[in-house]
């Protein structure tokens, strides 16, 4: 049995266990972090050895293709940045910092598997492995809000899982297969009378995945959980978890329903409209930065679904590129928020007043990320937006593209509200804001990412395009 395809995951689990064990022996602040972040080199190295390999392993439960490998790296990177960003935050749950790091790593393992499997049972387990640690992480802080966030996350995750499973059961019943390729082979035969069953399965699957990617109307948990969870966890939720969801959804639908006589992109097109519009509009009236970013990330999910709806190579490539750009951008934003709230002691946008004078670099970093979210150059977000909507237009989804671009214009209003607070208002309190080295490093890395993805957009698009193409190769 060739285990090399899952060596990154195995080593990641090993790292998580190592961190937990080390936690018993070391009390020195920083050691664990160093081990957790530094240890990521191992899975990264293993992933690197997988570059260029394609194929199906471990009884077809693991897939290796550029798509999977690409996402392995992205999740490792996201995990690393989130870990770094947590350096100061973990003081709030000092006792459990080892477990905190370990759970992040375990969740990352689940995400990596989500991107590299195409078999229902594995998908389900990978999904749960990614989800359950997140519920714990959300509730790690011993306060009412964190616990509430965890409860909401867990309950709705459970409900979604139930729907998802039901959908999978129907698919299984229709085709007798659990691997997506087998399902796609079986589906055309299951047409005709079974349309209703297929539609029901599709809807249930969308509902199940919709939770992960926070698509309307399955998005309700997001703002509450984002607000209540520790900010680095929020970052992780909004970036890594969502990316994993999309990575899975894209592979799932483009593989399983490739031959189905069912217009599944349409469902995403419709949801996309509602998702981005709701996200953007409700964000207009938010006063808490984390909630604001939560709604913004709902809106972003709407944009990504434009890529899903577009289908085809360009759509998929646009989606992947958008996710990458979004990863750096949103991580950057949340890391900045983490650093700021650590000092300012509030997530209220009003308390960001005059931040540009107290912490010019931090304010600039946040602004830069917000600009990227808004899709204005010179940031990754600009290219991502352009590229994503290009896919929609290419596929003739003009109406969707129009709604999309208009939405992105609306979003300016609330992003700029934050910029306004930081730059236009006078500080209420004076005094500089300090940022610890790991957080600064994470922030710098995110910003570099945002800028570099913009500058080297085209080589990177080459990669995303290869990744997307590998999805459609049978």
């Amino acid at each position, binding site marked *: 049995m060739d285990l090399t395809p899952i060596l990154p995951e195995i080593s990641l689990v090993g790292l998580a266990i190592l961190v937990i064990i080390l936690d018993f022996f070391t009390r020195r602040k920083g050691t664990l972090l160093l081990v957790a972040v530094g240890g990521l080199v191992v899975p990264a190295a293993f992933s690197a050895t997988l570059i260029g390999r394609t194929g199906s392993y471990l009884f077809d439960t693991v897939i290796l293709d550029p798509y999977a490998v690409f996402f392995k790296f992205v999740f490792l990177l996201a995990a690393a940045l989130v870990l770094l960003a947590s350096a100061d935050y973990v003081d709030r749950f000092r006792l459990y910092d080892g477990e905190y790091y370990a*759970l992040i790593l375990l969740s990352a393992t689940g995400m990596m598997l989500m991107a590299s499997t195409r078999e229902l*049972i594995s998908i389900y387990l990978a999904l749960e492995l990614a989800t359950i640690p997140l519920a714990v992480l959300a509730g790690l802080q011993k306060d009412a809000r964190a616990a509430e966030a965890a409860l909401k996350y867990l309950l709705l995750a459970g409900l979604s899982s139930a729907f998802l499973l039901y959908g999978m059961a129907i698919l299984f*019943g229709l085709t007798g297969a659990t691997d997506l390729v087998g399902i796609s082979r079986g589906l055309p035969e299951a047409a005709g*009378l079974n349309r209703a069953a297929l539609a029901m399965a599709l809807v249930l699957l969308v509902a199940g995945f919709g939770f992960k990617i926070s698509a309307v109307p399955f998005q309700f948990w997001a703002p509450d959980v984002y607000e209540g969870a520790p900010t680095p966890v929020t970052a992780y939720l909004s970036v890594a978890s969502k990316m994993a969801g999309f990575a899975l959804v894209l592979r799932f639908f483009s593989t399983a329903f490739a031959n189905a006589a069912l217009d599944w992109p349409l469902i995403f097109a419709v949801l996309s409209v509602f998702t981005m519009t709701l996200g953007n509009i409700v964000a207009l009236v938010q006063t808490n930065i984390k909630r604001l970013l939560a709604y913004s990330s709902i809106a972003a999910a709407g944009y990504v679904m434009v890529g899903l709806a577009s289908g085809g190579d360009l759509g998929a490539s646009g989606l992947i590129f958008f996710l990458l750009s979004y990863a750096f951008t949103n991580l950057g934003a949340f890391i900045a928020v983490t650093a700021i709230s650590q000092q300012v002691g509030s997530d209220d946008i009003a308390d960001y007043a005059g931040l540009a004078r107290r912490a010019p670099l931090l304010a600039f970093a946040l602004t830069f990320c917000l600009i990227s979210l808004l899709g204005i150059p010179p940031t990754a977000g600009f290219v991502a937006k352009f590229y994503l909507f290009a896919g929609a237009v290419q596929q003739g989804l003009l109406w969707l593209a129009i709604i999309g671009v208009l939405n992105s214009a609306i979003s300016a209003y609330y992003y700029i509200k934050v910029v306004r607070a930081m730059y236009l208002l006078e500080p209420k309190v004076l005094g500089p804001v300090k940022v610890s080295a790991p957080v600064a490093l994470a922030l710098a890395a995110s910003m570099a990412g945002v800028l570099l993805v913009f500058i080297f957009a085209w080589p990177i698009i080459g990669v995303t395009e290869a990744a997307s193409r590998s999805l459609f190769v049978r």
Partner: protein
Amino acid sequence: MNTSEPAVVAAFYVLSAITLGGAAGVVFGRNMFHAALFLVASFFGLAGIYVLLQADFLAAVQVLIYAGAVSILVVFAIMLTRQVERGNEWNQLRVPGLLLGLLLLIGLLAVFTQTQWAAGTGPYPTDTVQVLARQLFGPWVLPFEVASVLLLAALVGAIIIAREE
């Protein structure tokens, strides 16, 4: 699996009644402890259904994990939260919840009653444990391992969440 053996038919209906009755007890019961007991009953009913379906290993697992472990956890939680006196109240969504539940049920029934399911080949094994073992440690070894990691994560998580400072 289609069978018209009277004993099986009767068993099916009795077990279904137990299962659904137990579930209804959970939902409609007024007392939390009763609800937990109804849950156990429902789990047992399900185990019976599995036996009817000749999934004996699964029935055993169902009894062990659900009727045993999960139920005990639930009872612990009920006792620890000391909310028994409030009973098992309804919230304001009683009517819309019922409506939506019924709608979903109608949809599912509509699907289930008219779908042509895929036709598998081959006989049903007599010894399901052996087949399951081979399957679990064969094709589904990865999920199996993932499940173990998942349990580890849940274990760690449950401990640190539940622990008092």
